[in-house]
Each structure stands twice: as structure tokens, then as C-alpha cells.
């Protein structure tokens, strides 16, 4: 992650404040009208000038899918790669150039189906990547097959009789994969998205953000039960570090941890405020984050959004640099002629 001063010293000496347009490419944005991806793109493009890293120091890497088209719309460096491989390619960029700010964009199929292995390994390695997974619980680009996050029994083109697969809970699998930063947000709340993306970018190491995103063509309203305006107070649990986990219009619902370490929803009136679990993103042990992640069995039950986990762990790229620095320190800069002579030599006159 590079530090930006929020200004673009354009040679002229006069510092010019970066603006949204500095991050917008000349390519026409092409998603279906009404697609949730538009809102996410906007949130990103409005946030970046604030963060102030110059466009040339940013790289957006994606796989294939509707979500994965996003890099084309960013006036940064970008790679629209192949299906599922973005986390690997981005790892190469980030490790080759720790000075860059590297973002990974993809859908639920791209990152959890074909790309699942690269994702979990990037997370455990803690490569310095900002990974945004747009979860619309469907394959959009290929016109509507179920995805690893689709609920059981989902009727799609490839499952006319309903799907049989138990879905992944993206937050749970990320935590199981030793992720150091895990958050969830949704395309209906730009303010919240912006905050999550800001946090993800600021985190050293791999940050994983699940973004609930509406595919209004092939899976419209997948998140309505929790996201429509009236439902939200009772269905969205906004996690806040250091605060008791409460929700509801008047905070009437809360979350407690039972004797089995499970997060349970209770009425605050019944149990009393002090029994509520106080959220702590920074626990070394991911158990609390994991327990909270189970509240969203599927988006019909109250669902936590916000930062589940944010702990410090050496970023892979930094550690890699250090090893090189230490080695060069110890053995001096590499001497090729010497290297060739690292085995016994003899001379023929």
C-alpha cells in the first residue's frame, strides 16, 4: 500500500487535488441497467481521491465475470485476466512491487468456485491485496447458473430441479483460511461500502470484503429480505468495534455468545444490555468473528455487516523484502562471477 498525499504534483509544482474523474477511464460502463455493480464502482471512484494514492500507483486485477469488468472503468493500471486467477496474478504484482496499491475484483463464481484455491492461499499468505468479492449468488456473465453461494434448492438454468449444493458462507471460509481482515457490506449503502473499502485499503496484508450485490437480471432481489429499506433495521446487524452487538430500530435486538461459543440473537429487554457480546475485531483468535459469521446462514436471517476481523500480521511482500535485505546485508550484493565459482573450479592453460 502506497501513501498518497492526495495531490497530483503535475510537474507544474502546483499541487492539484485528485478528483473522481482522475480514476475514471474513457471506457463506457457496460453493465445491465439497474445492476448493483454501478453503485459499487461509484463508491470506489469516490473513495480513491480521498485516499489520495495516485492512479498510476494503483493496479486493479480481476478474473472473468460481470464484476470482473470493473478494472476497465478505472483509469489506473489494470489486468482483466482469466476466470478465477485474479488472486494469483495480483499476488505476482503485489510481491514484485510492494510500492503499489493492488485491488482484486471478482464475483462469487470467480473467487469461490474456480478461484477458491487462489483466494484462500492469498488470504493465509496475507499478501497485501484489497480483495472485493461481489456476491450476487449467481453466475451473471454466463446468463444465470447457480454459484457456490446460491442457497440450496435454487432453480437456475443448470439446476432446473433445484440445486443440491450447500453454499459457502464467504466470511466463514475466509476466516477458516486465516484471513487477517474480513468484512461484509452491500451495494445499497454507499456510505457503508466506502467505509469498508477504506478500511480494507488501509489494512496491511490481505483484506477480504464480501459485497452483497444485486443481479437484477438473473437473481433479482436475492437480498431483499435483508436489504429493503424497511427490513434493514431488523435484518442488518451493523458490527462496531468495541460496542455491544445490537440492532433493530431502537436497538431492541442484540447478540449474545452462548456457552457453546455460538452467537445467538436475543431481545435486549430480556437479557439486559450487559449480556450482549462486545465486538472486538482485533481478537487474535478468530472464533468470535466466526461465530458472528454464522448468523447469516443465508440472507433470510439477520445478517451482520461491517468488519468481522482486523488483526496485524506481517504482509507477505514486506517479509519477502526483509529476507532479501537481510541476506544482502549478510552476504553482500550478489556477485555473479563468484556464484559461478561456488563449486570447485580448475583452469586449463
Amino acid at each position, binding site marked *: 500500500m502506497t501513501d498518497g498525499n492526495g495531490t497530483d504534483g503535475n510537474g507544474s509544482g502546483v499541487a492539484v487535488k485528485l478528483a473522481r474523474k482522475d480514476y475514471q477511464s474513457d471506457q463506457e460502463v457496460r453493465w445491465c441497467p439497474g445492476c448493483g455493480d454501478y453503485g459499487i464502482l461509484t463508491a470506489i471512484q469516490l473513495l480513491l481521491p480521498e485516499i489520495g494514492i495516485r492512479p*498510476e500507483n494503483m493496479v486493479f486485477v480481476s478474473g472473468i465475470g460481470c464484476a470482473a469488468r470493473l478494472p476497465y472503468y478505472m483509469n489506473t493500471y489494470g489486468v482483466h485476466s482469466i476466470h478465477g486467477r485474479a488472486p494469483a496474478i495480483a499476488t*505476482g504484482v503485489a510481491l514484485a512491487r510492494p510500492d503499489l496499491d493492488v485491488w482484486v475484483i471478482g464475483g462469487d463464481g470467480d473467487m469461490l468456485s474456480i478461484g477458491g484455491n487462489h483466494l484462500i492461499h492469498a488470504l493465509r499468505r496475507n499478501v497485501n491485496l484489497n480483495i472485493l468479492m461481489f456476491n450476487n449468488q449467481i453466475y451473471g456473465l454466463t446468463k444465470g447458473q447457480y454459484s457456490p453461494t446460491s442457497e440450496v434448492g435454487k432453480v437456475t438454468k443448470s439446476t432446473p430441479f433445484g440445486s443440491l449444493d450447500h453454499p459457502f458462507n464467504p466470511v466463514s471460509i475466509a476466516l477458516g483460511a486465516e484471513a487477517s481482515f474480513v468484512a461484509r457490506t452491500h451495494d445499497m449503502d454507499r456510505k457503508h461500502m466506502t467505509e469498508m473499502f477504506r478500511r480494507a485499503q488501509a489494512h496491511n496484508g490481505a483484506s477480504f470484503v464480501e459485497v452483497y450485490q444485486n443481479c437484477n437480471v438473473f437473481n433479482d432481489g436475492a437480498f431483499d429480505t435483508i436489504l429493503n429499506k424497511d427490513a434493514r433495521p431488523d435484518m442488518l446487524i451493523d458490527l462496531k468495534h468495541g460496542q455491544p452487538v445490537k440492532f433493530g430500530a431502537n436497538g431492541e435486538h442484540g447478540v449474545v455468545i452462548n456457552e457453546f461459543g455460538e452467537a445467538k440473537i436475543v431481545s435486549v429487554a430480556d437479557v439486559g444490555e450487559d449480556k450482549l457480546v462486545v465486538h472486538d475485531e482485533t481478537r487474535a483468535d478468530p472464533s468470535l468473528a466466526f461465530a458472528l459469521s454464522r448468523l447469516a446462514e443465508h440472507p433470510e436471517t439477520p445478517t451482520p455487516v461491517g468488519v468481522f476481523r482486523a488483526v496485524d500480521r506481517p504482509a507477505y511482500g514486506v517479509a519477502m523484502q526483509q529476507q532479501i535485505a537481510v541476506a*544482502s546485508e549478510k552476504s553482500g550484493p550478489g556477485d555473479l562471477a563468484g556464484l559461478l565459482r561456488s563449486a570447485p573450479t*580448475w*583452469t586449463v592453460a
Partner: protein
Amino acid sequence: MTVEATPARRVETLDDVVIRFAGDSGDGMQLVGDRFTELSAVFGNDLATQPDFPAEIRAPAGTIAGVSAFQVHISDHDIVTAGDSPNVLVAMNPAALKANVKELPAGSTLLINVDTFEQRNLDKAGYAQNPLDDDSLAAFRVYRVPMTSITVEATKPLGVKPRDAERSKNFFALGLICWMYTRPTEPLIDWIKKRFANRPEVFEANVAAFRAGFNFGETAELFDHAFEVKPAPLAPGEYRQITGNVALSYGLVAAAQAAKLPLFYASYPITPASDILHELSKLKNFGVKTLQAEDEISAAGIAIGAAFAGNLAITGTSGPGVDLKSEALGLAVSLELPMIIVDVQRGGPSTGLPTKTEQADLMLAMYGRHGEAPMPIVAASSPSDCFAAAFEAARLALKYRTPVMLLTDGYLANGAEPWVLPDVENLADISVEFATEPNHGEEFWPYLRDEETLARPWAIPGTPKLMHRVGGIEKEDGTGNISYDPANHDKMTRLRAAKIAGIANDIPLVDLDDPGGADLLVLSWGGTWGATTEALRQVRAQGKKAAHAHLRHMNPFPRDLGDVLGRYSKVLVPELNLGQLSKLIRAEYLVDAKSYTRVAGVPFHASELVNEILEMMKS
């Protein structure tokens, strides 16, 4: 004091000799093989070696599957192979004898550790009866040496326990061979000293065993005389021994320095390519970055990312890994980024024969990607040549902004030979310029090509004003924007092909070795260089005329290859596959090349090629 050959003794001089050390995986044959090789190298012989590991993790001691062998060919003249078959076989146990004796020509010498020839071992080796008791070895000069017991005796004074003492028996064998071939002994003893510096008891036991072996030759009545192989008149220069994998690793490091770029090697372990990762991971002080990826697809992806970011990016593997990288390599072709894919070929298909050699990935390198996705291919011809081949692959990748396939094989990877150290001060400068400015008015067009090379600009992140997006969808010529236009796709497809084909103008002409008057051409490539070259020497030694061309560039071919082929009425293409190069040249030049193939996991024997060549001359 060190052991000295008594001046009096008789010594017979030989031009060359091929010795094979064979024993159980646990017997340390590779180690003594290496030692003998180094002694001979420093002594000034030309030489070539060929280890033969068991494919098993570690097969049960004493079984055929557990036999590990090391063959070394030393000579007083320039040689190019480790020899077809050994003149001398050191067999540490019955299994070693059984596994190797069938390759022994009549009249050759057998040094047998008789201590191991008791029932249990004979059974494990599957000997119905003791070969030492019947006449099955009648054709050979057999020396029965109680290597184990003498070793134990010799080390007793040091108070070494018998079980530990036995471990030194490989040094006894080495000592005996050193006596037989009058090798200098000091360097060896120094080496043992260094190697076991912090385990004096082991050091002493090994030295004692070594001397016992040497003295045994000296004193035992068995041998009426020793042999010597005089130094070879090698080209002057500073030499070292090197294996293909190490040479390749150094070649990459050299290329990175000559290109003024950081080296990034991403790989997933696989036999026989793993040692490249091991070697490069030691070189952190060279700024070399290595990453053991979760799989080969990831390794290829990481290399693509590193290339986009401005590193000299390499991913190395063997056949199965190349399969897996196919899709990512197609992306690299489409992105037109510089990158090297190393394929250390092994026996296939599928898991095949992981520790054996083969040349059957040429077609995969050519065509193993969907769509029209051409890629240059460079092949190394000997262990030390892997250095130059790696350097050349890097040159092409960088200059033409393309992934390049670098082919070696299991034989080159593990085989060793003496190598004249290159002058690293004067390596060719293969550095390329990153784009720094817009190239189309105020705009930057990532696919605006260099007219001569057709290479596109390499603009790396961090460069102001050159922000751009690349992807695997077809791109508009010039701007690189997504384009579904039919004519543009046709144009881009042909442009990508033309760029690779154009490399033919940037590589040497066929290096043709024609004594004159030949009407047969032997066309070889890759790791068969040694066997083919030796075969042609033998053919010519018989006064016969045959020409030889060995290919380094498999795609594109040297631009004069067609003419060269046209000059000969007969073309023979020997390959360790079912005729892949031969298919390529038949398609390209419509020449009726005859292909001679063997897919047995082992290098060609020069002799079989000689027969084939002579046959073909007759016809």
C-alpha cells in the same frame, strides 16, 4: 601422510573409461560418484555424468527398485556423453548387480561387495541362486571384494561401532577405484575433512575406509596393475562442473543482470524441475524473489503479474505443470508480456516416469493452448548449455514481449559436465526500455507496435500518464480496447503470429556440421545433442560422410532450415518421443524426414544411432 601410488607399479593407459557406481539408495552412490567426478575434473579429464535415481520415495533396502546408480565417463579427449554402457561396474549388493549387469558388455570389469551376497539380499534381489556361484558372470572380469568387512576392520581402531562403520563402505569403494585409475587423493581427503568438519568421528571413519580401499588395490594380489586416463586437451579457460538445473538457474540470474531487471521465479515443486526453485531460493542476496505457489496455475499467474509489474518473470515446471499452465500461457500470449516458462521434460503421459528423461513435450509447447496462441520455443542441448539457453530465452521474451517456452529434460537437469565459465563482465546487454511517455498524441496505446519487432510497449505501474488496462478478450489493434470486430480479430491473430515468426530474422542460421559430400543429414534437438554428436563422430571415424544439424530454436526455426534440408537426399530425425520434430519439419518443408524414436525414459545410446545412420546410408 597421504596414500601414494608406489612409483614401481605398472600402469596401463586408457583413452577413456566409463564407471558406474551402483548400490542401495542408502549406500551413498551419488556421493562417491560426485567425488570421483570432481577428482577427475580437477585432474583434467573431460567427462560427463549420468545419475540414475530410483523413482520410489525410498524403496525397501536391498530391492531392485531401491537401486541407485551413478555413471561417469572420463577421458583424455573431448567427449559429449556419459557413455552408452559402463566398462566398470561397482556393485554394492546383489540388487545393484542384477539391475545393472545386463547393460554390461562382455569383458568389462565387475567390482562386487561380496559381504552383501548372503541369502536375504539375494532373495530381495530375486536371485534364485548366488550369481557368484554359477557361471552367469563368466563373461566379465569379476573382483570379489569384502568391502563391508574390511571397512569395519579398518575403522575399528577408531572405536567406531560396526553398524556406523558399515556406512563408510562407499568410501572404501571410492578408494579402490581411485587406486585403479590413479586419481590424486589429497583433494578428496580435504573434501571429507570440510564436509564432516563438525563430526570428526565420521570424518575419520570415511578417511580410514577410503585409504583401506586404496591400499587394498595396492596390496591385494587381485589386480596385476592399475590404469590411468590422461588429462584431456580441453580448450583453455576456467572450468567447473555443472548440472543442467544449476546452469539454468545461473543463466536466469545472468539474464536478469544483463537486463537490469529483478528476477522473479514462481513455481510449484515437481521432479525434475524442483532444483531450479531450490537453487534460486538461495540467491536472496541477488535480489531474486522466489515463491512456492499453491499450484502450477497460480505460479503461472504470479509470473504474469510480476511481468506486468516489470520484473523478469519465470515459472518453471515439468510436463504435468505445463498442462495446467496452458490457459494462463494463452493469456500471456494475448497480453504480450515477457515471461519464460521452463519445462524440464520427463517421461509421460500423465505421471508417467517422473524421474526419467523424455522429449515428448515439444508439441505441447507448440500447440498446447486453445486458439491461435504462438510462442517461441528454445531448447537446451547439454547440461552446461542450459545457461546459454536460459539467457537466449530471456533475450527473446524481453525483446518481443512474449512468453517463451524453454525446454530441457531430466537427463540435462541432473547430468553434469565440465563448463568453461563465461565472462560475466561481457554478457550481451539484453535490457529493454520501459515506456515512459504517451505514444499517440496525448494518449498511451498499449498495443501500438514497434515496426521492426512488432513488440508492444511495456509500460509498468507507477508510470504517470500511461495507465492502461490489458485483458484476454480480443483487443483493438493499437488502442488495446476490447474489440469484437471480425476484421480486427483476424488482423490481431495474424499480427501475433507474424511477431513470433519474425523472430527467425533475429536468431542464428542453422549451425550445420558437414564434413562435405554428405547426402544424409541428421537433424537433432535438445538433450540428444551429446548422443547424436558422438554417433556422428563414430560414423565419420569409419570414413563415412554424414552431416549434422542441431536445433536450439524450435519455434520459429532458423530461416535457412528449409534450404539446408533441401540440400540432403536423406534426413534422419532422432528423438526421444514418437516423432514430434519430424512432424513439424515435414509439415513446414514437406521433406520426407525419417524419424528414429525411442521412448524408454533413457538417453539414446550413440551406438544405436550409429547403426541407424549406417542403415539409412545403405538404403
